[in-house]
């Protein structure tokens, strides 16, 4: 690896994602095989959380390797996480997190806290930060604190937020979510909010697309909602 690429890797690790542009030739693209250029989000509403993502997996920014992958991984009964970054890394980390969480919950004889799930992911991301390239959004419901949303960045930072967006497509919708988010929305309002956000991001980001996967998690259980591409809301220029 020459100095230029080493430097670029270091900057990327520190968060300078501008280096991932379309103009880059695929062989220079420092991706680990299949990557999820993606849009992921999670939003808290009154009584639950909605976690959502697009469904496109791409290699090198120009080849869509899958139109329908599910980036919403269930790591426990009422805790989901969505993945961004290298698919292989994300799958390995979520598999390990599932193992640790199931063991933890059997020992405790109760479902794990969402914070515990997020902490497990954070620990895996941070301890292996040199080798991994995956970020997560964890959302779920537990008896102690109700609905929660956590974000675990690629380097291993853990943060709790009322809503969060991630992935390459998220840059196009910061304005929308900042303007339109209200605390304590109803389930329907929140579903509309999340679907709109995903539709807008998919509309502008070339590495996000396919269908919108949404999961609604409440005390009562888990509900999957899939919005196919043609049913996504359309905006003025479409």
């Amino acid at each position: 690896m020459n100095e230029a690429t080493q430097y670029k890797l270091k900057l990327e690790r520190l968060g300078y994602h501008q280096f991932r542009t379309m103009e880059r030739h695929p062989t220079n693209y420092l991706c680990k095989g299949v990557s999820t250029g993606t849009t992921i989000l999670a939003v808290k509403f009154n009584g639950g959380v909605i976690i959502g993502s697009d469904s496109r997996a791409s290699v090198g920014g120009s080849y869509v390797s899958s139109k329908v992958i599910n980036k919403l991984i269930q790591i426990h009964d009422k805790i989901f996480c969505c993945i961004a970054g290298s698919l292989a890394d994300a799958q390995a980390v979520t598999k390990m997190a599932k193992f640790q969480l199931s063991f933890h919950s059997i020992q405790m004889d109760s479902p794990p806290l969402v914070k515990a799930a997020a902490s497990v992911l954070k620990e895996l991301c941070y301890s292996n930060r040199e080798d991994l390239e995956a970020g997560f959004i964890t959302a779920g419901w537990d008896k102690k604190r109700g609905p929660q949303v956590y974000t675990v960045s690629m380097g291993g930072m853990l943060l709790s937020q009322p809503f969060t967006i991630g992935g390459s497509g998220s840059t196009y919708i910061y304005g929308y979510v900042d303007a339109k988010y209200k605390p304590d929305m109803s389930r329907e309002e929140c579903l509309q909010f999340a679907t709109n956000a995903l539709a807008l991001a998919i509309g502008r980001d070339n590495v996000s697309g396919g269908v919108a996967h949404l999961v609604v998690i409440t005390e009562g259980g888990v509900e999957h909602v899939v919005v196919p591409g043609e049913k996504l809301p359309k905006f003025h220029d479409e």
Partner: protein
Amino acid sequence: MSRGSSAGFDRHITIFSPEGRLYQVEYAFKAINQGGLTSVAVRGKDCAVVVTQKKVPDKLLDASTVTHLFRITENIGCVMSGMTADSRSQVQRARYEAANWKYKYGYDIPVDMLCKRIADISQVYTQNAEMRPLGCCMIVIGLDDEYGPQVYKCDPAGYYCGFKATAAGVKQTEATSFLEKKVKKKHDWTYEQTIEIAISCLSMVLSIDFKPSELEVGVITAKDPRFRILSESEVDANLVSLSERD
């Protein structure tokens, strides 16, 4: 060779005696009786049940924290007989083995594989001179995808086997003969019959008329494969129907 018992360390560590016995393993079996409890497990046509006594010797103890039934995975549970600390250690290891299997192979561990793994670990203790065998006996129940409900028992010697019905603990022999008589007549019992047999076995053998707070019952059924510990009211209902039948 005709010296009889040896003057060596065969009673102190797990090495062979001149007669070919492992004294430490035999002592481990005796240690199971130290717990003073008996447990019974029965396999029905589409369910498996474990029952054990619940003795709370000290009035200061919080009865809700005293238990010998443990969940190992969502769909596998066990009853431990013998020394409590050794039991907990073995359960912890079983939980880890089950979770590790799921992580490595992507599917839930079958009951017999779990029992085999625990038995293999117990066998290692019978060969290692530096570690003693654990003084506890584990009876595992679970629902197998292919073979239906299963009851497996593994002991400190590292031996394990599947059973139609089995018992462990102080009154093991009496309980086993009671169960043998029942199994001879028929052995595809319904859920209610299975629980009744397990509870009546304990009752007969220990000559105790149980109250719901003195029993712990764990069940797995084909309809609900999750390992479930019955609440006091459910145990009460079963005891009532048992006494009405008599």
